[in-house]
C-alpha cells in the first residue's frame, strides 16, 4: 500500500469523523425543534396494585435533568446514573388515582433501552382492593408543551384503555372490568345523566312545554313515555355509531322543537282541538336523543362497559326528567283545578316565554354553526 493511499485513507476517515460530529452537533442543537417528543406509560392493574412502566426518551430526560446534551445518556451505565434523579423528578408528575384516592407510584427499577434511546422506569402503586375507577395524570415535562404521553392500561392481560395525555388534557379516567368497575360505571353515568338534564335548560323547557296543557296522569305518562322511548332509541343508535348526525344540525333542531311545542300550546289555547303531544314528544324525542348522545360521547365512554354506561346515563336522564315532571305536574294540576280562569293565562305566558327562549337558542346555534 502506497503512502499516498494511506494519507488519502486517513483524510477520508478524518472527514467522516468530522462530518459525523457536525451532524451530531446540529442534531443536539435542534433536538427540540420541529419535533414532538413522546413518553409511554404502560399500567397493568391487579387486585392489590398496579405495575407501571414509564419509558422516557433521553432528549426529554436530559432536558429535564439540565444536562448539557442528550448524548450524556447513551448507555446502561448512564441510565443507572441518571435514572434515580429522573424518577424523583417524575414522581410528582405522574400520578395514579384509585377511586378518587391518590395511589403513589414507587419507582423501583430502571434500564436503558438502546433501541429507543430511552430510560425505562419500573414502578408499583399499591391499593387494598381493586378500584372501580382509575385516574392517570401525566405532566411529565411542563417546560415542553408539545410533549405527549401515550398511556396503555391493561387488566388481566387485556387492554382496558389507551389514551394520549397532553399539556391541555393531562389526565384520563377509566373504569376497571370487575364488579367494582361496573358499579363505578353505573354510579358515574347515572349522575352524569341527571347532571346533563339539570344543566340543560333546553331539555327542561321542552319537558315543561309538553306538560303545560296539563291532563290526567294517563295522558302525562303517555307523553313522557313517548319521549323516553324515542330519545333512548336515538341515544343508543348514536352511541353505537349506527347513526351520528352532526351537532350543527341536531342542536338547532332541539331549539326548534321547543318553539314548536310552545306554539302548539298557544294554538291549542286559542282554537282548542286534539292533543298531539304524545306523537310530537316521540318525534322530537328522536332529535333530543342525538343531543344526549353528543354530550355522552364527549365524556369518553368505557368501551368495555358501553352497555352499562349507556343504560346508566339513560337512567340518569329519566331520573332528571321524572324530577321535572314531579315538580311541575302538581303545580299545573292545582292551577287547572283551583284557578280555571287564571290557568289559561299562565299557560299562554309560559308558552310565549318558552317559545322566545327556543327561538333565541335556535338563532344562536345557527349562527355558531
Amino acid at each position, binding site marked *: 500500500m502506497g503512502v499516498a493511499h494511506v494519507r488519502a485513507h486517513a483524510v477520508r476517515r478524518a472527514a467522516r469523523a468530522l462530518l459525523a460530529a457536525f451532524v451530531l*452537533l446540529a442534531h443536539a*442543537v*435542534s433536538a427540540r425543534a420541529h419535533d*414532538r417528543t413522546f413518553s409511554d406509560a404502560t399500567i397493568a392493574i391487579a387486585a392489590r396494585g398496579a405495575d407501571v412502566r414509564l419509558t422516557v426518551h433521553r*432528549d426529554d430526560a436530559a432536558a429535564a435533568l439540565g444536562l448539557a446534551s442528550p448524548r450524556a445518556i447513551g448507555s446502561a451505565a448512564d441510565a443507572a446514573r441518571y435514572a434515580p434523579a429522573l424518577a424523583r423528578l417524575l414522581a410528582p408528575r405522574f400520578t395514579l388515582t384509585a377511586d378518587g384516592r391518590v395511589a403513589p407510584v414507587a419507582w423501583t427499577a430502571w434500564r436503558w433501552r438502546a433501541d429507543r434511546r430511552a430510560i425505562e422506569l419500573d414502578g408499583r402503586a399499591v391499593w387494598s382492593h381493586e378500584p372501580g375507577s382509575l385516574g392517570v395524570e401525566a405532566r411529565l415535562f411542563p417546560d415542553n408543551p408539545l410533549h405527549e404521553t*401515550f398511556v396503555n392500561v391493561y387488566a388481566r392481560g387485556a387492554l382496558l384503555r*389507551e389514551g394520549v395525555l*397532553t399539556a391541555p388534557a393531562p389526565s384520563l379516567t377509566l373504569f376497571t372490568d370487575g364488579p367494582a368497575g361496573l358499579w363505578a360505571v353505573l354510579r358515574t353515568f347515572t349522575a352524569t345523566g341527571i347532571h346533563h338534564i339539570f344543566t340543560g335548560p333546553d331539555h327542561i323547557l321542552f319537558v315543561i312545554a309538553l306538560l303545560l296543557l296539563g291532563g290526567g296522569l294517563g295522558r302525562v305518562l303517555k307523553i313522557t313515555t313517548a319521549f323516553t322511548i324515542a330519545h333512548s332509541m336515538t341515544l343508543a343508535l348514536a352511541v353505537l355509531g349506527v347513526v351520528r348526525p352532526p351537532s350543527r344540525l341536531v342542536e338547532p333542531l332541539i331549539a326548534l322543537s321547543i318553539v314548536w311545542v310552545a306554539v302548539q300550546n298557544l294554538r291549542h289555547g286559542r282554537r282548542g282541538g286534539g292533543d298531539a303531544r304524545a306523537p310530537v314528544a316521540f318525534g322530537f324525542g328522536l332529535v333530543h336523543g342525538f343531543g344526549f348522545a353528543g354530550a355522552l360521547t364527549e365524556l369518553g365512554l368505557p368501551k368495555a362497559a358501553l352497555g352499562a354506561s349507556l343504560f346508566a346515563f339513560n337512567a340518569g336522564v329519566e331520573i332528571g326528567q321524572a324530577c321535572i315532571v314531579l315538580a311541575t305536574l302538581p303545580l299545573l294540576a292545582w292551577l287547572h283545578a283551583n284557578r280555571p280562569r287564571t290557568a289559561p293565562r299562565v299557560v299562554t305566558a309560559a308558552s310565549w316565554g318558552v317559545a322566545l327562549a327556543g327561538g333565541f337558542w335556535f338563532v344562536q346555534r345557527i349562527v355558531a354553526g
Partner: protein
Amino acid sequence: MPRPHVHHPPRALFALVFAAAALAAPAVAPAHEYWLAPSRYIAPPRAAVELAALAGTGFRGDRKPFAPQHCVRLEARAARTLDLTRVARAGDYTWARFAPSDAAGVLFAYESDFTPITLPATEFDRYLGLEGLDGPLAVRKRAADGSAGRERFRRCAKAWLAGGDAARATATVGLPLEIVPLAAPGAGATLTVRVLWQGRPLAGALVRGWRAPLGDGGAPADPEQRDSVAVAWQVRTDARGQATARVAASGEWLLSVVHMVPSADRAEADWESTWASLTFERTP
C-alpha cells in the same frame, strides 16, 4: 432553458473543510427532516413490510410513535388505496405491517396536522437561511424587530416501494406540499421531481437529498443506529416546479423540501411551514 443549479459537496477533503467550518460556527440552525421508512424498499408480493416514521438530521433519526391525534392521513396506494389509520395503533413505533398484493409498487403517504413552536429570533432566522426559505427571511429582515419565530409546522411524507408500474409512483397524492417524481424513483441515475404546493408547481423551492448506504444483506440500515450523512446535493426548482438530481449511487435516498407561508391562524403562529419528503431505494 437554463439548468437548475446543482451543488454536489466533494466527498473527502472538501467535506473536511466544510465540517470544520460548520464546527467553528457559533451554532447550527435546526434542520429536522421527517420521513417514512419501510423496513425494505423492494418487496415481492405478499412479503411483509413494516412502515415506520422518523424525525432527525442527516438521514439518521428517532422512530416516532403513531399519533392518531396528529394524523390527517396515512395510506398505501397500490392496486387500490388503503387507509392505514384503520390498522395503525396509537403509540406503536411500527405504524403498519403491509404486504404488497402485486409487484407493481406501493406509494405510502402521510400527512400530519400543524404543531406550533416558537424559536428564538436568531435561531429562527438561521433555520430559514439553512432551509433556503428566502422569502420569509427577507420579510423578517425588513421588519427587523427581533421577534421570536412563531411558527406552526406539518409533515407530508411519502415512500416508494419499488415496483413495475411507474404510474403509481408518479401519481399525485394530493398532499399540501408534495414531491412528485416524474419517473419511478430508484430506476435511473437521475431523478426529476416536481414540487407541488396546494396542487400547483412551486418554483424556487430548495430540494435537498441525502443518501444512506444500505446495511447488511442489502436492506436499509437501521435509521436510528446508522451514521448521519451530509446533504448529497441541493437544487432549486425551476419555473415549472421541477428539479433534477443525481441519484446514481446505490442506497436509501431521502429527498426533502420545506415551504413556508404566513400563517392562516395568526393567533397560533406568524408562519406555517410544510415539510415534504420522499424516500426510496436506488439499486443500479
